Each structure stands twice: as structure tokens, then as C-alpha cells.
């Protein structure tokens, strides 16, 4: 059972590798922008899935790690003059540390209580940052244009950011697969099915959940830095949007929670649909309502999501569709 001999290991990585590679070869700005958004949500949804899919803990406010990490990374770039790569990693690290501290408190809660607590954390973070002087308070921060000079001008910096996001997405998918197919991941799945029974079998649930929460918070911190660096500014209203948290959940559920491929499929499908709805004259203000409706229908009729549904129907494909 060597994982690199499994088709299910290579499929998600190969898809993202090819997609990003083609975009880099084509060198068209519009394609890059579209792909950036889709890949960003792929990576965000996959990070959330490491917690949600493998341990069953629903984090409703997961976007807080995107916001806090993004703010930190952006602050280091614009105010401290750090290069992009270390700043993004520092953003991820800060999100991880916050997740560790928060996790020690809220991971004692289960089910709906945990979900509610995570919403509270997001709102608390937004309120804090809005009043935090070094982060620019309610107006946020802007990047000095000269920061882009290091990367060969603003145009080239966008390509550098895209490449970094592409690699981050590949790493998230790799980590997601490795967690799922490790001894650690087996313990997480035992927690998901029945936490008390898992502990009786020797699974150190508090520690395992905290580690998982930290992993699933680390990547959104990196992605936040990349996103705000690309935009050139960051403000509280953009960094802590609760509806993005809910969209992440919809993507995971749509594709199939607890699978590696599911969040990828869900993010791509949802972004495609969202693009259509935003440009359609009838639905343009209703895309969140449609997202809510999709979530409701999935939970009622296809709780396993698209990938889970196919896996259930066609057991022969289980080794391919992980």
C-alpha cells in the first residue's frame, strides 16, 4: 500500500499541476485571474476539509484564519518590507498559533456549540482588527507600489503570486491525502464517527483535534496573504466575510466531505455556478441565496457530496477517487 503507487494519490495533484501549468504557458491575464479565484477556493475548501471532513468538526468561521493570516502577511510586506514568501509563511504560522490557542478552548465543544463558537471567533477578530492601530483600523492597509518592484513590476508580481498559490494548492492536496491515509488520519476518522468510542480505543482525541485544527488554519493564512498582496489592500470588511466561510462549507459538501478530490470538484463547480449567477440578470443579487439552497439540498439528498456519491455507486473507482 505505497501511496505513490495509488492512482487516487496522483489524480488531484496531476489535475491541479496541469491546470496551473497551462495557465502559466498561456500567459493571459483574464485566465490567470479566473484560475486564481478557483484555485484559492480549492485550497481553502481543502484546508477546511482536513478539519471538517476527517474529524467531523464544522468550523463555520474558518475564514478568520484567512483574514488574520492575510492581515499579518500584508502588514509584514507593506509596513516591514518583508518579501512575499516569508511574509506569507509568517501569515500561515500566525493563523496556526491562533488556531492552537483557540483550539485549546473551543475544541472541548462538540456539534452545534463548536460551530457557533467559531462564528464568534470570526466576529471577535473582525472587531479587534477594526480597532487595532498597527493594522490601520477600519480603513485597513495599502501596499506601497514600490513593493511590487522586487518582482519585476506589478504585472509580473501577479504572476509570481499566482505561481505561489498554485504550489500552495498542490501542497494542501498532498497534505490532505497524507493525513487521510496515515495512522493519524485513521484516528481522526474514528473521532468523526464516535469520539467517545475513539478515546476508549486509545485515540488521544484532544491532541489529534488540536493538531488538525492548526493544519487546517495554517494554509488559509498563507492564501490570505497572497490574496491581499494581489489586491494591493486589505480591510476588515474583506478579510472576515462570514459568507465566504459558508461558501467554503458549500464547496466541501458539494464535492464530498472527507475526500481529497471532493473540495476540488466542489470549488470548481461552485465558482462556475457563481460566475454564471453573478452575470445573469435574474440571479445577480441572489447568488448567496442559491448557495444556501444548494447546501440545503445536498444535506437532505446527497450528504456524501458528488465524489462520495460516485464512490458509493461505483466501488471500482474507490482507489481512483480518493
Amino acid at each position: 500500500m505505497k501511496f505513490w503507487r495509488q492512482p487516487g494519490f496522483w489524480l488531484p495533484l496531476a489535475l491541479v499541476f496541469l491546470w496551473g501549468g497551462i495557465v502559466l504557458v498561456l500567459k493571459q491575464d483574464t485566465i490567470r485571474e479566473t484560475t486564481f479565484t478557483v484555485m484559492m477556493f480549492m485550497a481553502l475548501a481543502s484546508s477546511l476539509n482536513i478539519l471538517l471532513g476527517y474529524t467531523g468538526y464544522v468550523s463555520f468561521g474558518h475564514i478568520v484564519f484567512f483574514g488574520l493570516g492575510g492581515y499579518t502577511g500584508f502588514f509584514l510586506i507593506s509596513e516591514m518590507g518583508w518579501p512575499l514568501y516569508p511574509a506569507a509563511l509568517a501569515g500561515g504560522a500566525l493563523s496556526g498559533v491562533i488556531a492552537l490557542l483557540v483550539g485549546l478552548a473551543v475544541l472541548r465543544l462538540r456539534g452545534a456549540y463548536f460551530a457557533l463558537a467559531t462564528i464568534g471567533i470570526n466576529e471577535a477578530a473582525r472587531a479587534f482588527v477594526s480597532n487595532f492601530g498597527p493594522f490601520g483600523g477600519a480603513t485597513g492597509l495599502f501596499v506601497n507600489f514600490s513593493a511590487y518592484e522586487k518582482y519585476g513590476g506589478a504585472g509580473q508580481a501577479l504572476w509570481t503570486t499566482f505561481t505561489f498559490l498554485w504550489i500552495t494548492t498542490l501542497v494542501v492536496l498532498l497534505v490532505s491525502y497524507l493525513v487521510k491515509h496515515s495512522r493519524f488520519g485513521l484516528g481522526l476518522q474514528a473521532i468523526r464517527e464516535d469520539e467517545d468510542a475513539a478515546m476508549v480505543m486509545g485515540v488521544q482525541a484532544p491532541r489529534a483535534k488540536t493538531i488538525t485544527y492548526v493544519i487546517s488554519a495554517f494554509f488559509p493564512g498563507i492564501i490570505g496573504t497572497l490574496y491581499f498582496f494581489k489586491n494591493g489592500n486589505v480591510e476588515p470588511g474583506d478579510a472576515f466575510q462570514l459568507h465566504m466561510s459558508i461558501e467554503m462549507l458549500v464547496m466541501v459538501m458539494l464535492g464530498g466531505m472527507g475526500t481529497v478530490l471532493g473540495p476540488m470538484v466542489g470549488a470548481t463547480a461552485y465558482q462556475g455556478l457563481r460566475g454564471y449567477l453573478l452575470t445573469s440578470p435574474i440571479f445577480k443579487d441572489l447568488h448567496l441565496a442559491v448557495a444556501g439552497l444548494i447546501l440545503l439540498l445536498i444535506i437532505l439528498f446527497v450528504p456524501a457530496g458528488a465524489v462520495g456519491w460516485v464512490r458509493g455507486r461505483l466501488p471500482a473507482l474507490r482507489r481512483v477517487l480518493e
Partner: protein
Amino acid sequence: MMILQVQDVTKRFGGLQALTDVTFDLPAGQILGLIGPNGAGKTTLFNVINGVYAPNKGQIIFRGDDITGMPSYEVARRGMARAHQVVRPLHDLTVRENVMVGACFGREGHSLASAVQKADAALAQVGLSGRADQPSGLLNVAQKKRLELARALAARPYLLLLDEVLAGLNPTEITEMVDTILKIRDEGITILMIEHVMQAVMSISDRIIVLDYGQLIATGKPEEVAANPQVIEAYLGDPEMTARLMAE
């Protein structure tokens, strides 16, 4: 050698006195039956022994170490495994993967690769080898009970807590399960079992303890316990009435 010593254990839930000063010893290599009417506190006693609840008072000594108040995963790692009354398979995983959880996180803490072998051995021991690759949700009740037992065995425990593993089985299945339990005992694993199927528990236990309203009311060999008036009263009410009924 005493593998388990329970000393003056008391457990309260709010105003409910679930266990009162329960004290008993379990020598290594024996089967100890724990019986008592519904609501007597048997499952609560299991929960206190393996760390799901901390007792309000008293001590649990396992293999010479005080494990009182330790979390259940720590107790599991020290070599105590448990099969639950309400079977709890991990539905999305195969039968083999379910058992691997026991092997990976139990006393020996195996890697995934070696856990596969331990899981297959445990499945063979309980007679589920043919089902290893099936999703565990597809098993029937008797098979799920065996799966629960296999998961506990894969942890390679010193002490096995069995919570009503015979409940819900038909007579043939009970006979098979009793054979399996005796074989486990013969391999040197000590067993503490809660059971309502009287004939079975009387025939396989070396000793029996009886709980009633959270108190230990009798302890001894199966035939002694069965003849104890307090035990009969606990199960059937008034002993004189019972004696009259039996005479009729």
C-alpha cells in the same frame, strides 16, 4: 497477581448516587462476571474503571498503577480494552480498517502496515475473516458484536471489559461467542464482563459480583451467588415470596 483493584469507588451524577463504595479485586487470568438488575450501575462502573468518568471518591489500581482520573485513551494505552454494549462501528470504514484503529491506538501502538496483520489476526480470532473488506455498516448484529470484540482484541489488552456482548444474539450465536470468550481467556487475557444472559455468565465466570442500586451486594463463585438471598431479592423482589413461588 491482582490485575485490577477497585477501592471504595463512589460516583454521583448530581443528586443521583450511581455507585457507592464499590470495592473488589480481579486476579489476572480470570473471568469475573458483573451482574445486577437494570439501572444498578454496571455500565457506570465500567466507565469509571476505564476513565470515561472520574470517580468522586476511591481509587482504581491497574497492574499496580493508580489510574484514577486518567483519560480513557491513556487507560487504553496501558492495556485495557472495552467492547461496548451499543456497538459503534465506524460505518464509512471497512471491517479491517475498524479493527486497525484498535491495533494502532491500543497498547502496542502499531503503524498502519503492522496494524493490518494484527487486525487480520483479531478478525480470525472472532471468525470474521471473510468480511474484512466489507464496509462495516453492512454487518448484522451478531457480526457487529464480533467486530467490537475484534477491535478490543487488536489492542492486545491485558484486561478486556465486555459490556453485554451476548445481548441480542440467538442461542447458537451465544454458544459460539461463549467459546470465543473462553479462548480469549485461555490466551491469558483477563476478562471483566457485564452480562444479562444468566446461564452463560454463570457457566463461564470464575467469580461473580452483583451490583444493586450502586452497591456491591454479593461476591463469590457463581453457585454461591445464585443461592444468595440478597441477590434473589434484588432480581425478583421478596425472597420468601420467591421461595414460595419456586416451591409451587
